[in-house]
């Protein structure tokens, strides 16, 4: 079964440092998403991305965050200057078309710990 792959599985970084979280979406998917989950809380939408541009972003996704599809297979989330409150699980997802009923699949996540 096709999978969304995320690396690394765990990232520890110092406050103020930049981090890049990487995702390889399912190969024939065109729509990409990032979500985060603070420990013990619900999964929260960050951003959706299609055709090399952001389609929608949440209030969480401020100027410290950016997304990029640097090549034909990777989709990245960059946090420019990490804060303690950025510590969370970050999930990438992809779908064939708009909407959760088009093969919307989540990766296993990257646990980001900011110290």
């Amino acid at each position: 079964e096709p999978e969304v792959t995320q690396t690394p599985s765990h990232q520890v970084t110092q406050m103020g440092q930049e981090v890049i979280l990487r995702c390889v979406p399912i190969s024939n998917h065109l729509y990409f998403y990032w979500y985060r989950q603070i420990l013990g809380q619900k999964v929260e939408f960050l951003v959706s991305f299609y055709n090399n541009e952001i389609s929608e972003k949440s209030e969480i996704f401020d100027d410290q965050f950016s997304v990029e599809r640097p090549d034909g297979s990777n989709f990245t989330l960059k946090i420019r200057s990490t804060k303690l409150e950025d510590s969370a699980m970050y999930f990438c997802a992809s779908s064939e078309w708009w909407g959760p009923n088009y093969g919307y699949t989540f990766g296993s996540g990257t646990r980001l710990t900011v110290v």
Partner: protein
Amino acid sequence: GESVGLHLPTLSVQEGDNSIINCAYSNSASDYFIWYKQESGKGPQFIIDIRSNMDKRQGQRVTVLLNKTVKHLSLQIAATQPGDSAVYFCAENAAGGTSYGKLTFGQGTILTVHP
């Protein structure tokens, strides 16, 4: 505003029992609902979905019920097994505008199945 919430944060059952997990939503524009299962260290895994023009949908050992009048969603798991132990989230999607891909998640219910 949009919100999806759960009535019961934890649920403990005996193996073989039926489990019912509940969810309330507040966005009347939501037209698609999904239940996800999340095991420790993994991303949300699709269980079953339902569109707003349906009241009930059945899968293998799972049934989702939708009551639009009171904006309530439930997940029924028949003959619960220890492997069903996980956190269960409901999520909703509101078609229209640019939110086709955005999922709004509820708080989650921890299901523990005792052998």
